[in-house]
């Protein structure tokens, strides 16, 4: 189980391949990559703030919870902070299991919890000003299904 919180970018394809390599024996590998969307063609940059110290702890706790719920051969979480541009990868989750259902469920669980329980905050900088991205009710609601 690997958790990385980092400022530098990463290569999702390379990460997927090395993750798959590391979990030999798993038949199913699921990945999720989050990419900075352009906000109506005018996003200048995205700033991601986090809470050093708490961040890795919170993510590790979420990953541990996923391990108790599903039979996982491995899990990977990478989340960036700092300054990002449109099209940059923000974060990635990968899960591996014997069968597809566990891998899919665990990846969705990790995403839902990362979204609302890991201490990251996004700010969008556009030509018309800066604004903090607001949490969506549906993201909080998504937790209730687990």
């Amino acid at each position, binding site marked *: 189980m690997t958790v990385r919180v980092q400022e530098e970018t990463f290569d999702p394809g390379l990460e997927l391949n090395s993750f798959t390599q590391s979990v030999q024996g798993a038949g199913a590998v699921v990945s*999720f*990559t*989050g*990419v900075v969307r352009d906000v109506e063609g005018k996003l200048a940059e995205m700033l*991601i*703030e*986090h*809470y050093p*110290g*708490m961040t890795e*702890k*919170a993510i590790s706790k979420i990953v541990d919870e996923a391990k108790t719920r599903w039979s996982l051969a491995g899990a990977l979480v990478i*989340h960036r902070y700092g300054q990002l541009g449109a099209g940059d990868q*923000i*974060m990635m989750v990968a899960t591996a299991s014997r069968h597809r259902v566990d891998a899919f469920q665990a990846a969705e669980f990790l*995403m839902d919890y*990362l*979204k*609302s*329980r*890991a*201490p*990251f*905050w*996004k*700010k969008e900088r556009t030509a018309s000003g800066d604004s*903090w*991205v*607001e*949490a969506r009710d549906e*993201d*909080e609601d998504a937790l209730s299904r687990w």
Partner: protein
Amino acid sequence: MDVLYFAWVRERIGVPRDTIETDAATVNDLIEELRARGEEYQFAFEDIRALRVALDQELSDFDASLSGVKEVAFFPPMTGGE
């Protein structure tokens, strides 16, 4: 006690952290003390429902006890992920 602020809470207060001496028993008590520090703090804490709190880097509640707590952090709901 270290008190940390993130995102717009940090921006409203103007500093990322304060180190304070306090006898506050609960998070709510601490917030009352912080509000007394000036209007930046009143602005940051104007609507508690828009905030989250972590005690020693674990999410907690506003009525939680501060007994033994070394680090308190205030921030808006998280928005990580995609």
